[in-house]
C-alpha cells in the first residue's frame, strides 16, 4: 500500500534528518495528526510501521477488519482498509511524508528528540524531532499457549479477513467476547458451517447491535464460561481443550480452525521507563489533553485509550495531539 520502503537506511553514515514533528504510527490517530500538522505547514514525517498479520501494522487495527459501519460520513459503511488508504492519501496530499519502517529506539530525555529506525545501536539516530506524536496503537493479545507458535498459520489465526476463506464448510471457533470477536464470528459464517464463540463469562461485552446480530445468526453457537486450556493438533489444528470456569470440567471441542480475538495490548515497549504508563501499559496523558510527562511528546489513539478504542475517537485524539503539538511548538522559547 505504500510507495516507500525506507528499510536500509544507514544512519551511521548520514546526519539525522530533522523534523519539526515526527509521528510514530499510522492508524486513524496518527494519520489524523498528520493531516492536521501537514495543513499547519509543519511537514510531518509519519513512521508508519511495517507489514504484519497482527494488528501492529501500517494503518493499524482497521487494516484487518471488513466493514466499518460507525465512522461518521459513510452512510453505507466503508471497508476498514479503504478508510485507512483514504486517510493516508489525505495526509500525503497536504505534504506529510510517510515511511514504511518501524522505530527501533527513541531518546526523549533531551531535545531535539532522537528516533532510530533499523539498528538501535547505531551511533546516530535516523531522525531528530522538535515534537513527537506517539500513535503506536495496540496489538492483538494471544492466548499465551505453547501450541500457538506451532499452529499459527496451520488453523490458528489472528486475521479472520485473511484466513476465513480456508475454512469453507468447516467447524471453527472464535475466542473472545467483544465487538471484534463478534465481527469476526459473523464474517466467518460466510465460509464456515459452524462458528463457536468461546467466552470466559456468561455475557458478552460487545455492543448491543453486535450481540443481537450474533444471537440471530444460526451458524454461531456459544460456549459460555469457557477458557481455552490448549489448542490440540501436532501439525494442524484439530480441536480445543476447553475448561468450564465455574465447574473446572474440561471438554474437547473438535474444530479445524481457531481465531483469537481476546483483546489488545498497547504498543508502548519503546517508551518503557520514559513515558508514564498505567498498570496495563497505556500511556498516561493530561486530563482532556494529549500531553505526556515529557514536554513536547504527545500521545493519541489506542496507545493512551483503553476506554473508547474507536476509529472515530482515535481520529479525534489525533486532531487534539496535532493542535497541542502545534501550540507547543509556537510557544516554546528554547
Amino acid at each position: 500500500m505504500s510507495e516507500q520502503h525506507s528499510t536500509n537506511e544507514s544512519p551511521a553514515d548520514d546526519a539525522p534528518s530533522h523534523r519539526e514533528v515526527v509521528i510514530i504510527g499510522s492508524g486513524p490517530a496518527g494519520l489524523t495528526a498528520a493531516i492536521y500538522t501537514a495543513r499547519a505547514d509543519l511537514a510531518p514525517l509519519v513512521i508508519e510501521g511495517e507489514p504484519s498479520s497482527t494488528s501492529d501494522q501500517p494503518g493499524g487495527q482497521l487494516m484487518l477488519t471488513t466493514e466499518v459501519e460507525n465512522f461518521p460520513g459513510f452512510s453505507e459503511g466503508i471497508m476498514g482498509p479503504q478508510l485507512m488508504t483514504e486517510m493516508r492519501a489525505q495526509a500525503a496530499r497536504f505534504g506529510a511524508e510517510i515511511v514504511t519502517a518501524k522505530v527501533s529506539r527513541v531518546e526523549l530525555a533531551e531535545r531535539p528528540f532522537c528516533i532510530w529506525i533499523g539498528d538501535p545501536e547505531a551511533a546516530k539516530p535516523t531522525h531528530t524531532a522538535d515534537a513527537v506524536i506517539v500513535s503506536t496503537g495496540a496489538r492483538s493479545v494471544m492466548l499465551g499457549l505453547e501450541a500457538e507458535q506451532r499452529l499459527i498459520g496451520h488453523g490458528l489465526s489472528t486475521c479472520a479477513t485473511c484466513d476465513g476463506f480456508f475454512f469453507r464448510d468447516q467447524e471453527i471457533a472464535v475466542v473472545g467476547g467483544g465487538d471484534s470477536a463478534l465481527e469476526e464470528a459473523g464474517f466467518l459464517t460466510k465460509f464456515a458451517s459452524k462458528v463457536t464463540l468461546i467466552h470466559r463469562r456468561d455475557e458478552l461485552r460487545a455492543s448491543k447491535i453486535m450481540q443481537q446480530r450474533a444471537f440471530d445468526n444460526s451458524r454461531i453457537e456459544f460456549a459460555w464460561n469457557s477458557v481455552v486450556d490448549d489448542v490440540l493438533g501436532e501439525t494442524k489444528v484439530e480441536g480445543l481443550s476447553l475448561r468450564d470456569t465455574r465447574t473446572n470440567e474440561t471438554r474437547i471441542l473438535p474444530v479445524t480452525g481457531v481465531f483469537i480475538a481476546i483483546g489488545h495490548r498497547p504498543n508502548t515497549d519503546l517508551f518503557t521507563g520514559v513515558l508514564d504508563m498505567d498498570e496495563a501499559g497505556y500511556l498516561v496523558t493530561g486530563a482532556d489533553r494529549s500531553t505526556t510527562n515529557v514536554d513536547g511528546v504527545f500521545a493519541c489513539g489506542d496507545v493512551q485509550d483503553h476506554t473508547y478504542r474507536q476509529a472515530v475517537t482515535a481520529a479525534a485524539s489525533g486532531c487534539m495531539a496535532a493542535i497541542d503539538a502545534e501550540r507547543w511548538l509556537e510557544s516554546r522559547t528554547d
Partner: protein
Amino acid sequence: MAGAISNLSENTFDEEISAATEPVLVDFWAEWCGPCKMIAPILEEIAIEQSDSVQVAKVNVDEAPELARRFEVMSIPTLILFTDGQPTARIVGAKGKPQLLEELASHL
C-alpha cells in the same frame, strides 16, 4: 526478464517451478487480504534486488484453491520457497522487508 513476477496457475505451476534455474519464492495471496497487499510492493523490490539469487512468483488462492490445498496453505500471505522444485522454507504472515530478507537469506 530479470525481476519480473509471474502469476502461476494450477496449469502452469509444476512446469514453471521445475524449470526454474534459481529458487522460486511463491507468494500465496488474495485480493481481499490486507496484509497480502501490504507485502506486495516489498516482494516487487525483492524480485528486482535479488534477481541473481531468487525468482518471485504469485499464486492467487481464489483462482488456484487446489494449489493452496496441496501445499496446506491455511493463512495468507504465505511465502513458500521452492529450491530444485521442492518446498524448502515457509514464511507465514506479513512481515517487514528487513525481517523477510533475513528469513530468506538463511535459505538461499
